[in-house]
């Protein structure tokens, strides 16, 4: 494959089976050439763990990540010796001051020991800034060449489900007036279907006009461009049930916290048994990086190597993804935005239980298995978590250029029949008469994405 070509992922659902962003047996030619010419030898030692790990995991990287690694490495390869020395001077100087050469520092992969050594150096913050400058230079270089995909419309839907109690006078306060409140008419969702489920459903009589269908028809689209993260299972299962899906051919990356119970339990068990020691931690993490997780995955994940690996890293990176469904959704969405830059992302929050007396001090996961007291929903607490974390997903998106100008973000408070909308003026929802019924709402989003 030549440099600049997309990985072999097509737009047809049947072929999207290979979310398999994998299936590469070598790097793009230009990258391979740069590597063969000794590019890595020019990099500072503290750059190597990240770079080598990205190359090692190439088969499991999302298209956007591959492109980023390519941009970085080809930019570095394009520099002559003097330019390279100038670019890395500060990093090399800081490594010298930090005494990196005397550390037990892995240049092969990122380890907890590496992170700990760096973090407690008095020069750590300076080092981070110096490294960021290098990445900024590479990104600036890349930005000149690549603007096509960055300019297309994107959509982020954040869902606070209707069973979470919200105060209409304060619910949007933390958004600090960056957007507008839009009143919705959710009555047509009706029955057991939530407004979010209704929005994602295929309109009656228009089998190809569902939002997921529209996103998947976009040129160059892969399942990495379309994500649904669910703190429960309802939303993911309604997508799975909505149309006949051949095994291995899913319209989106579908992640349900509850459907991933088995995966989580295995990881929790290992991590909780870990001794409080750096080398023990690295040993456990090393084992968890290698173990075959396929048997623990639901079908929509099991057949997708890149997503399996994404989940493995998500769980290893903490941030509560193993503990609370809402944390899983927030951190999972943030990582998806960082790593895959999807066009369409849905993050649906949910309910967690109250911590149980005594045992919650020691063990967070599987509280029902270890404490016979019945689980009690913490609805007000879950609502507060969801409000804060919904904002965090948007803040995570807004760190990236792709989402600053061409993205509509809707935070849907199902219980209030309200949405908070951050979007460019041309997003037509602002022009609809309020309360906006769900059908026109869906039509506006469909038009936005078309």
């Amino acid at each position, binding site marked *: 494959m030549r440099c600049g070509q997309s990985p072999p992922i097509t737009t047809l659902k049947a072929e999207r089976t290979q979310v398999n962003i994998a299936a590469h047996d070598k790097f793009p030619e230009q990258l391979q050439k740069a590597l063969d010419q000794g590019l890595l030898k020019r990099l500072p030692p503290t750059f190597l763990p990240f770079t080598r790990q990205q190359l090692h995991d190439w088969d499991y990287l999302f298209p956007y990540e591959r492109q980023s690694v390519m941009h970085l490495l080809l930019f570095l390869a394009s520099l002559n010796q003097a330019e390279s020395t100038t670019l890395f001077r500060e990093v090399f100087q800081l490594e010298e001051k930090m005494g990196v050469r005397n550390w037990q520092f892995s240049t092969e992969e990122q380890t907890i020991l590496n992170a*700990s050594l760096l*973090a*407690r*150096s*008095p020069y*750590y*913050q300076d080092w*981070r800034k110096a490294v960021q400058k290098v990445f900024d230079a590479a990104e600036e270089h890349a930005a000149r060449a690549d603007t096509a995909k960055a300019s297309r419309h994107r959509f982020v839907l954040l869902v606070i489900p209707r069973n979470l109690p919200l105060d209409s006078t304060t619910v949007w306060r933390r958004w600090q007036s960056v957007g507008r409140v839009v009143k919705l008419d959710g009555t047509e969702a009706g029955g057991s279907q939530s407004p979010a489920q209704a929005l994602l459903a295929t309109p009656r009589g228009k089998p190809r006009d569902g939002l997921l269908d529209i996103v998947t028809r976009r040129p160059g689209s892969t399942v990495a461009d379309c994500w649904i993260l669910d703190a429960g299972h309802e939303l993911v299962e309604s997508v799975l049930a909505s149309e006949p899906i051949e095994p291995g051919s899913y319209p989106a990356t579908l992640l349900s916290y509850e459907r991933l119970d088995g995966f989580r339990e295995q990881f929790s068990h290992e991590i909780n048994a870990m001794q*409080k*020691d*750096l080398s023990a931690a690295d040993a456990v993490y090393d084992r968890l990086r290698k173990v075959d997780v396929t048997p623990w995955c639901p079908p929509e994940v099991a057949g997708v190597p890149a997503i399996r690996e994404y989940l493995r890293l998500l769980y290893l990176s*903490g*941030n*509560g*993804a193993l*503990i*609370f469904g*809402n*944390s899983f959704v*927030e*951190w999972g969405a*943030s990582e998806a935005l960082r790593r895959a830059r999807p066009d369409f992302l849905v993050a649906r929050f949910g309910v*967690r239980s109250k*911590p149980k*007396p*005594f*045992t*919650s*001090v*020691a*063990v*967070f996961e599987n509280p029902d*298995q*270890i*404490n*016979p*007291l019945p689980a009690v929903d*913490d609805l*007000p*607490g*879950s609502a*507060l*978590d969801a409000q*804060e*974390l919904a*904002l*965090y997903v948007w*803040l*995570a998106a*807004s*760190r990236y250029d792709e989402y600053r100008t061409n993205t509509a973000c809707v935070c849907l408070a199902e219980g209030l029949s309200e949405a908070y909308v951050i979007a460019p003026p041309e997003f037509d929802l602002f022009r609809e008469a309020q309360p906006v019924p769900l059908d026109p709402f869906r039509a506006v989003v469909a038009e936005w994405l078309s």
Partner: protein
Amino acid sequence: MGVKEPYISRALAGCPGWPGDSSRRDFLSAAAAVLVGLGLPSTGVAGGGQHGTGGSGQRVVVVIFGGVRRAETFSPEGIENIPHLSGDMLRRALLFADTRNEGVTAHFNAISSILTGNWQRVDDWGKVAPATPTLFEFFRKQLRVAQSDTWMIASNKALTSLIGASSASQYGPSYGANVVFPKQLLVAAVVNALRAGRTGNLADRARIETELQAMLEAGNYEGLGWNVFDGVTNLDPRVRSTIESAISNFVRSGGPTSGDELTYMVSREVMRKFSPRLLVIIFSDVEVAHFGSYALHVAGIRTGDRLAYQVWRDIEADPEYKGKTTMFILPEFGRDPDGSATNGFFNHRGDSESTRSTWMMALGTAVEKPGVIERPVRHVDLCPTLAGLLGCPRMELQGIPISEFRV
């Protein structure tokens, strides 16, 4: 510090009995006017109760929270989470509005920097003792103070017994503090019951007490990270009865059952039985933030606020402490700002004001005049300040004594 001034002033403007004035100068003038006549606690520094042989006779209690941002505490939105700190306590306190952690914003290093007066950069997992002497060691060695006079009682699982003494030659464990991790006892009891299949016991308060007492009798105090009067397998009988009493109160009170509640109960019993002259209490319920529950994090702040107030009330009610004690309350650091690449309140790794700048409150004997101090002070400045209050000779440290206190 212009960045924080509006927060603090606006925050205090919302405090009960505080003047509703938002400009800094007017605010400080008004604050001074309000504070005059409130009546300070007794300022006498003499008095009995000295256990060791030297020192000023003053006592010091330091309460340290985990990572807490200004946004959830001394800010217009956060003030509701700290009704005691921003109410009764603030009126008689010195509030240092910009208290800075300029070192490693991780637990072991943050606590050991506070305790040593030098920025520590040791292993974050508590496998290595602080590199320079702790306040406990200065106090005990220089003034020949007994170990029973210096205690650290902590919830935080990131700490180990090595926090009580440094690896410095001339000092070290023989001059260290008693170190107790009550929450570890609870964790061990739960894990032990699980391993033995006694899950039913975990839902019953009476049986939980049995599990905790059994853990206490098991004798592996080193395994719990404790270091109390050098007893690895046997607890001093006085300590044992102290902990038993705390456990009983914790379990039977019918109240909340978090790690910080147990830490408070043990601290209270230690104060009653040993009246230590230097007591450090570390609460960490707020660290549930690492798991991403904002509601539980805020609940941890409220718990810390309530328990710090309880400690202050205990001081005021105990003749061994009343009128000769200064209490300090401060977070280890803040947390990362919303929208940061480190996932905001979940973590405390960023090099941001939100992570590095918090606050410190002092109240009691050494506080000459309540008010708000806006100039920045650093965490390492606390150790030499406390050393001065306790009567230790001056030491060569990175920290500089804070001048606002009456020594």
